């Protein structure tokens, strides 16, 4: 398989604490790859190592087939980046910021006008100095500078956080378009619904360690679902002791169950009872993610 990003056992230690510990990422080309983790999990540190901003204490990194940091020059024109928590040059105007960053590259800003129109950045906005921008406007400028030259690889660190829902959807459409054009997007986020919505692959990092890395669809297919049932009558929990069902919590008229296979056996049992309510999470990923986050690899 052709990997857009490949890290081998990268580790970063601050003082004695491992911020990133032995991480092996394999990001296939032409996909949207979600890098999920809570705040402080090591997402930004991983990205900063990929971008040659910090040096790994161990391990190696390849981006678009080039070894980092030695061949970083070769990929400069092919990547677009939205770093996390950065400050733009406050003294520059919006259009100056975009031109300033673009002019370092040997490529044309082919998507600039379209991006500006779609992100609703008009001439008046662009003529303002960045110091007068709202957080959302600054984020839009960052997104435009990252995508305007139509790069082969987008590396985005929590890019949609400060965008309103409408702009988030515009942004997601662009990610899909990039993917459909054979480009790769590496999206770091702590927002699970966002990752589920746009990503094909997911990797979860916790305390610097990679917990899982897989196709989202494969993960969903194999994941247990936690459902909550409430009844109008008293129940006998033993009726629910099925091969595919694990009872997490049983009360007089309520049950929390973990389903690890087809629903049919459970539905057969449910026919015996008058059900008051049935809560099934929209996606099994959420409970999986939360559980992973609480207990880590042991779960």
């Amino acid at each position: 398989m052709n990997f857009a990003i490949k890290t081998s056992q990268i580790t970063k230690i601050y003082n004695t604490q491992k911020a990133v510990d032995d991480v092996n990422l394999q990001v296939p080309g032409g996909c949207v790859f979600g890098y999920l983790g809570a705040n402080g999990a090591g997402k930004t540190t991983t990205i900063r190592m990929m971008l040659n901003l910090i040096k790994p204490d161990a391990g190696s990194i390849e981006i678009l087939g080039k070894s980092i940091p030695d061949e970083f020059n070769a990929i400069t024109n092919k990547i677009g980046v939205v770093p996390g928590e950065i400050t733009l040059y406050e003294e520059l105007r919006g259009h100056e910021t975009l031109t300033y960053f673009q002019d370092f590259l040997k490529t044309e800003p082919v998507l600039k006008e379209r991006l500006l129109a779609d992100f609703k950045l008009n001439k008046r906005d662009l003529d303002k100095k960045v110091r007068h921008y709202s957080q959302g406007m600054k984020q839009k400028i960052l997104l435009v500078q990252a995508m305007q030259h139509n790069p082969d690889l987008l590396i985005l660190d929590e890019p949609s956080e400060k965008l309103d829902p409408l702009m988030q959807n515009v942004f997601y459409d662009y990610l899909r378009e990039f993917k459909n054009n054979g480009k790769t997007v590496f999206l770091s986020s702590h927002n699970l619904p966002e990752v589920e919505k746009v990503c094909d692959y997911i990797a979860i990092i916790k305390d610097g360690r990679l917990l899982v890395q897989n196709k989202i669809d494969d993960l969903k297919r194999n994941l247990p679902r936690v459902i909550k049932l409430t009844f109008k009558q008293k129940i006998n929990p033993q009726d629910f002791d099925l091969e595919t069902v694990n009872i997490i919590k049983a009360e007089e008229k309520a049950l929390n169950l973990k389903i690890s296979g087809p629903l049919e056996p459970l539905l057969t049992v449910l026919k015996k009872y008058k059900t008051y309510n049935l809560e099934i999470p929209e996606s099994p990923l959420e409970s999986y993610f939360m559980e992973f986050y609480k207990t880590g690899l042991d779960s």
Partner: protein
Amino acid sequence: MTLAFISFHHFKKIFKNQLRVILILMFFAFLIEMIIALILSTSVLRSYVEGYFSLMPPAFKQLTGFMGQNFVGNQFIAFGYGHPAILFILIFTPVSIASRYITAEIENRSIEILALRLNPRYKIVLTQYVFIVFMVLMIFLAMFLGSLGGKYFTSLSSEIDEGLILQIIAIGLLFFSAIGAIVTFIATLFSEKSLSFSWNIGVILFLFVYDALIRLWDQAHFLKPYSLFHWYQPVSISTEKYDFVTGVPVLIGLIILFLVLAVYNFNRRDL
């Protein structure tokens, strides 16, 4: 036109950003040298200054290198190039530029996009260094114009030798370029602008006090060649006592050494 080791695009941005500051500093530098020439040309003021300097303690004269009484025009003009106000401008300019365009960029992380686009990394350091040299050059140019203006507007032509002033400017340019290299290196060591600024000022202040002490203390005179500020003595140049043969290589050596250190450290450090 492109030079492999700097980015004109980045230089242009810094220039645009600092244009107002450059013009203000140039105006002050011009004004100071013009005033010095005016004092020199006005007999009443000149005798007043002569009298003033004759009252100064020997230690002060030793420190400034300017003896005051019965001075010639060149000496007084040279004194203007080492005047505390000028030293202040010429030292704070490199310190501010290095702290602003290296350390502050690291602190607020705006360097993250810049370092991705401006490759290899050392171009960031060298571009801001070239800008420091450019600013120092502009300030010296303004001073030179101030001296020339003073000379021609006040009919001092017989007393002032432009060749000597150009020698002072050449040594000054080398000296403050060396200061620029030192402060650039210090700026690459830190990730907080305030730390970079205070360490830079601290180091320059230490070097200045060290120079003052060894000039005032007779037994320590032998240490003079080992003092950085010893290599910028405009009055010594005007009296032809400056050791160009040692001074020029020392200053060039310092520039190369600290630039190499700055580039090496900036390339290896985490941003």
